[in-house]
């Protein structure tokens, strides 16, 4: 997905001279298309994320549209206060590109997992948090939001298969219902929605009618559409490659509480900072309860159905 995102960004830069790309010394085999095409609009700021955000703030104030690229955990947290006091406070169109959210960095370990990026960034009012689910989705999300007036955080996965039925549709602040279902609403964010779709298929073979919906943005989040969806089911299960607290699961809980809904909510997400447990992304997603099999287990247990 990150390559598709940078290809789309390079096409944008072709049309719009305001686009500038900064990187915190990351993006080998990803950023070259942009760097080679626009050497005067590409800056490797070095391993210095705070300065990257500060420089982006100065560029944006002058009318440019800077993209600041790094691994999601460094992009979102190393310069967090510079994000708050820079583009958020000044309402500037800085774009922060965080690559490989959640458990994407697999065997690289805890320092490389962005497990709270959505949560900490959505706390900043008017900082749009955008989480594409596949390549076409990422391309469309970028095309539709790169001129957004305020700051944006893009959580861009490393890889990810095309999401069946999504066809790249993206609209800021909208909920995408990929599959209708009466018994349980599975609600996911990002590429992990693929696991939710597989889980729905497995649940169907057990006679459980599970729907699948995709949330792709926060600030704005699709709160009204979520309320409508949630008012029609007894059980909702959120699925995110993120801490179960602070991100999608919390947003859905807020919608349920705020609307006085009776829907029961279970949140599939990472429960603690993983220590001493490495492995592939798929292995870790299973260990942390967000694989299709584990989502099925969670939904069945909630419905009182034996495994």
């Amino acid at each position, binding site marked *: 997905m990150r390559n598709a995102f940078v290809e789309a960004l390079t096409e944008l830069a072709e049309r719009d001279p305001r686009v500038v790309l900064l990187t915190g010394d990351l993006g080998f085999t990803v950023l070259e298309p942009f760097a080679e095409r626009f050497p005067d609009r590409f800056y490797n700021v070095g391993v210095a994320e705070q300065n990257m955000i500060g420089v982006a703030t100065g560029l944006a104030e*002058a009318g440019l549209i800077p993209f600041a690229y790094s691994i999601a955990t460094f992009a979102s947290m190393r310069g967090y206060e510079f994000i708050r006091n820079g583009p958020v406070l000044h309402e500037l169109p800085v774009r922060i590109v965080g690559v490989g959210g959640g458990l994407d960095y697999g065997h690289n370990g805890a320092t490389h997992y962005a497990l709270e990026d959505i949560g900490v960034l959505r706390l900043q009012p008017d900082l749009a948090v955008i989480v594409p689910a596949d390549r076409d989705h990422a391309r469309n999300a970028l095309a539709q939001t790169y001129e957004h007036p305020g700051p944006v955080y893009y959580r861009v996965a490393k890889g990810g298969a095309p999401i069946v039925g999504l066809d790249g549709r993206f609209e800021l602040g909208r909920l995408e219902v990929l599959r209708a279902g009466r018994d349980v609403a599975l609600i996911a964010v990002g590429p992990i929605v693929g696991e939710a779709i597989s889980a729905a298929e497995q649940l169907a073979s057990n006679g459980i009618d599970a729907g699948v919906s995709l949330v792709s943005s926060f600030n704005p989040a699709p709160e009204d559409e979520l309320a409508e969806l949630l008012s029609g089911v007894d059980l909702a299960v959120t699925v995110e490659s993120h801490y179960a607290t602070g991100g999608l699961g919390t947003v859905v809980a807020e919608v349920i509480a705020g609307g006085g809904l009776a829907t029961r909510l279970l949140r599939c997400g990472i429960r603690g900072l993983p220590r001493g447990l490495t492995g592939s992304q798929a292995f870790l997603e299973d260990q942390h309860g967000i694989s299709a099999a584990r989502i099925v287990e969670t939904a069945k247990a909630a419905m009182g159905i034996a495994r």
Partner: protein
Amino acid sequence: MRATPDARAYPAGPMVGGGSQDSLGTRIRLRVLEQSHRAGVGHIGSALSIADIVAALFDGVRRGDGGDRERFVLSKGHAALALYAALYETGRIGADALNSYCADGSPFGAHPEQTVDGIDFSTGSLGHGLSIGAGAALAARLQGSDRRTFVLLSDAELNEGSVWEAAMFAAQHRLGSLIAIVDVNGQQALGYTKHVLDLEPLDARWRAFGWTAEVVDGHDADALQEAIARVDPAADRPTVLLARTTFGSGVSFMENQISWHYWPLSDEQFDQAVAEVRSP
């Protein structure tokens, strides 16, 4: 969203502004004393420390307007009162605005906000401004402008590692239009810089980071202006002016006293301070 100051008049305290015979630096000092006394707010020593630096920058040095104006980042945002005083004394804000300093509903707080016309960036968290300034200078280059960018830092602020990230970036990209001025008053919130994190040799440190560094008298506005005029924005190195200043400059009982980071002025202290600034 750029708010204009609240139109309603704020009650003024004793106004003690100087006359045309006084230098801009002196007039800024008097406004700093007047407003901090009226509002009962501290940070007086820091604002007095930069009075002549701000005077130098606001006395015809900065060029251009609109999007091509030369940007100024007050990275040591806690000295905002000196900036407000300069905006007032150069006709950019009115008396109502100045007299709203730290009042309920005012945009003129103890740290500057970019919602005020004439203030380019909101600051207050130290170590942020030089990065913004580096971005502003890079933007000028990308936009084909020869406008300069000024960043005023405190010496204690150089404790922040992010300052040195920005310093390396500006040198690497040869941002000759970036002019940093460090208010070297030797003091910080809980002590003297030499006892907290010794910054010396400060000029050698900046030069080692690839900057042109010049030590100037931070209370000589003419010398500051001459040093700024000597900077060639097309040079291949950014410039830092290490402005040697006295914390609390102009008021004998404040000079080099850590406590004047904090205290507001009593009426007696106010009268004495004003008299000293008027007749140095």
